[in-house]
């Protein structure tokens, strides 16, 4: 089969690899109809996540048709159309029973690596370095899906791929980012980052009852999409974020702040240079500019929700601000499995149509070009969907 493989920093190749097989009895094999490039894939592409091996297949947002099931999978049948959550979860351990699926204790066979880095291991993830299992990813024609009796959700035929594909990651991730804000009526929520996850956080915050959402980014196309979702926007290249937010909220600050950016934040001025240099010489693995700013801006007693991906260590963390002002910090990789049904219901009811986020559709053959385009945010690129069964022509169809 064809698969998009990582060969080093910004080096991707689509190549022929063996077809996947059932390795565990609760596996299924899925023939992929649509798969997407995630913002967090760019952390791998840019070489910021350790424990990658040359030849790794990337991709953790995918859906398709079940073509084979293991002996212990009784809830799925060949021919079912399913969306696959990006965390791999067993359904049996303490954390799965507590619905903390991205913390599954049994799904990361390389837990020893994660323990060295994080103290304890989170769940295994598809196509996201060996630290989280070394599983083959879904930017391919087929994928092996472990614990297929727990993860994948069957989706109805009347919804298009673009409407349900993002149940795999960015919709639940954006939603959990907003849910962690414990939104109450009258709340103002500020959101750093208007990438695909930020876009879903904006819409989820409104669905959860926020009165006002303020979104922060620098890319005009993203700010425009945020405004289409009902958010007021701040371009951090043009306006001072703290001063603008204080002005908009009468000096109190937003009730909750969501960091939808993560470890590769961009920022104006000297602080960005400081973090970028420290990151380059490995004194700091992550650039936490958005997180620092979200903490400083949040109102007293408010919540900072961190759903953007961090990989390692940061410095100049304003702990004094967190402690003295009674802030709550909530974090986590999305526990996707617990959001699948409720969010699919929202889609079926017409409360949200996730296909709004797609800007480009390409053949899987053109994935390397897609990564380059997404990284450089060329051509208004916000979200790329890859089609394994389309022929590559080097071009994307633009939406």
């Amino acid at each position, binding site marked *: 089969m064809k698969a998009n493989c990582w060969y080093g920093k910004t080096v991707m190749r689509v190549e022929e690899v*063996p077809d996947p097989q059932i390795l565990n*009895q609760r596996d299924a094999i899925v023939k992929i109809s649509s798969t997407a490039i995630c913002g967090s894939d760019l952390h791998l592409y840019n070489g910021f996540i350790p424990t990658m091996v040359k030849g790794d297949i990337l991709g953790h947002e995918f859906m398709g048709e079940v073509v084979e099931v293991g002996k212990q999978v009784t809830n799925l049948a060949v021919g079912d159309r399913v969306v696959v959550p990006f965390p791999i979860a067993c359904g049996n351990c303490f954390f799965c029973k507590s619905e903390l699926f991205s913390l599954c204790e049994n799904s990361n066979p390389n837990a020893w690596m994660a323990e060295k880095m994080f103290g304890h291991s989170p769940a295994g993830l598809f196509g996201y370095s060996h630290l989280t299992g070394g599983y*083959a990813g879904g930017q391919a024609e087929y994928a092996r899906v472990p614990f297929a009796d727990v993860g994948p959700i069957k989706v109805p035929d009347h919804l298009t791929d673009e409407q349900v594909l993002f149940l795999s990651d960015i919709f639940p991730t954006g939603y959990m980012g907003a849910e962690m804000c414990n939104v109450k009526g009258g709340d103002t929520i500020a959101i750093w980052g208007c990438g695909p996850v930020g876009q879903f956080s904006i819409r989820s915050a409104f669905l959860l009852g926020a009165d006002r959402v303020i979104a922060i980014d620098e890319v005009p196309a993203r700010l425009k999409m945020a405004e289409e979702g009902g958010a007021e926007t701040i371009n951090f290249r043009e306006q001072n974020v703290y001063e603008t937010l204080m002005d908009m909220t009468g000096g109190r600050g937003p009730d909750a702040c969501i960091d939808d950016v993560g470890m590769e934040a961009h920022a104006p001025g000297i602080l960005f240079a400081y973090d970028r240099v420290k990151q380059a010489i490995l004194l700091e693995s992550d650039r936490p500019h958005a997180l620092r700013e979200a903490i400083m801006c949040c109102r007293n007693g408010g919540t900072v929700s961190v759903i953007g991906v961090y990989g390692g260590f940061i410095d100049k963390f304003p702990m004094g601000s967190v402690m003295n002002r009674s802030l709550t910090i909530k974090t986590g990789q999305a526990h996707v499995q617990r959001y699948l049904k409720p969010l699919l219901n929202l889609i079926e009811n017409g409360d949200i149509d996730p296909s709004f986020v797609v800007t480009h559709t390409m053949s899987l053959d053109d994935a390397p070009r897609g990564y380059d385009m997404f990284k450089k945010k060329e051509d208004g690129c916000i979200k790329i969907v890859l089609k394994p069964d389309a022929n590559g022509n080097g071009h994307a169809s633009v939406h």
Partner: protein
Amino acid sequence: MSTRENNDETNRAVSHKSNKQNGTQHGLPSGNAKRLAAGLGWFSVGLGLAELLAPKAIARITGVSEKRTGLIQLYGLRELAAGVAIFSQKNPAEAVWSRVAGDVLDLTSLSLACLSPDAKRGRITFATANVLAVTALDVMCARQLSNGGHKGIQAKAACIVNREPDQVYAFWRDFRNLSRFMKHLESVEEFADGRSHWIAKGPAGMKVEWDAVIVADEPGKVITWRSLENSDVDHAGAVQFQHAPGGRGTIVKVNFQYNPPIGVVGAAVAKLFGEEPEQQLDDDLRRFKQVMEVGEVVVSEATLLGNGYMDQRPGRPPDASELEQAESVPSQIPTNYESTEGRANQR
């Protein structure tokens, strides 16, 4: 209390092996520790005789009820046995450890005696302080004796399993199951007489084999085993099962030791565990947890081949020849295991 007893079992089973090794192959313990052991031996004999012959006087001195003279005489016998054991062994570490266990028993009895209506608390406190001082000496001495020579390969690790202790115990007690999650083991066969034959995978297709017996076996609580005297490999292991608080399954603690002999077999055993035996045991326990909770060892494309450490294959599907090389592909193992059925019931 059961936990402490279990720990003593564990220590005894494992320290037994290290003593033998220390005493016979890798040099004797230091002179100081031996002199201290001798002093403790004489102390044991003296106290034992006094408890045996004058239990009422001992009861008065320690402030415990004079109705307990029978128990005091029993403790006297125990002291005498410990003293004799210290003088009769070349390396008395095990005998000194048994004194530590005795001290724990003494301390427990003294604290229980406090509850008796005719107890004299001041005297009991004085006696307790004395026993604590001796316990400290015993522990120091026993540790010096145990660590005096070559340590062999030792490892301990723990995990928590989302199943009841009885179920976890039953799976482990069937030693044939061990090779399902212990990477270095090829097979364990158990015979009707309680002995078992263990085969470990050595480097370059070599096999290392030994026979073992069970030393202690308390259903739902603890299993300890050790290799027979004439084995090529000197091995001992212990596993304890404890209820996790709040009904959150079972805490499993494993402790084992290999004392590799000199020569080819020894080199093979050393190679099996490499630099990080504890890491390997950790991973064995993780696989054990997977088998107990999800019914099989979980594999990714990266960990299907090799030792699952630094020689990771890429995260992409294996080809036919790689699948053949794989030691085991879980989906190809028969499913009629207890744990797999258990999983179905649990869901």
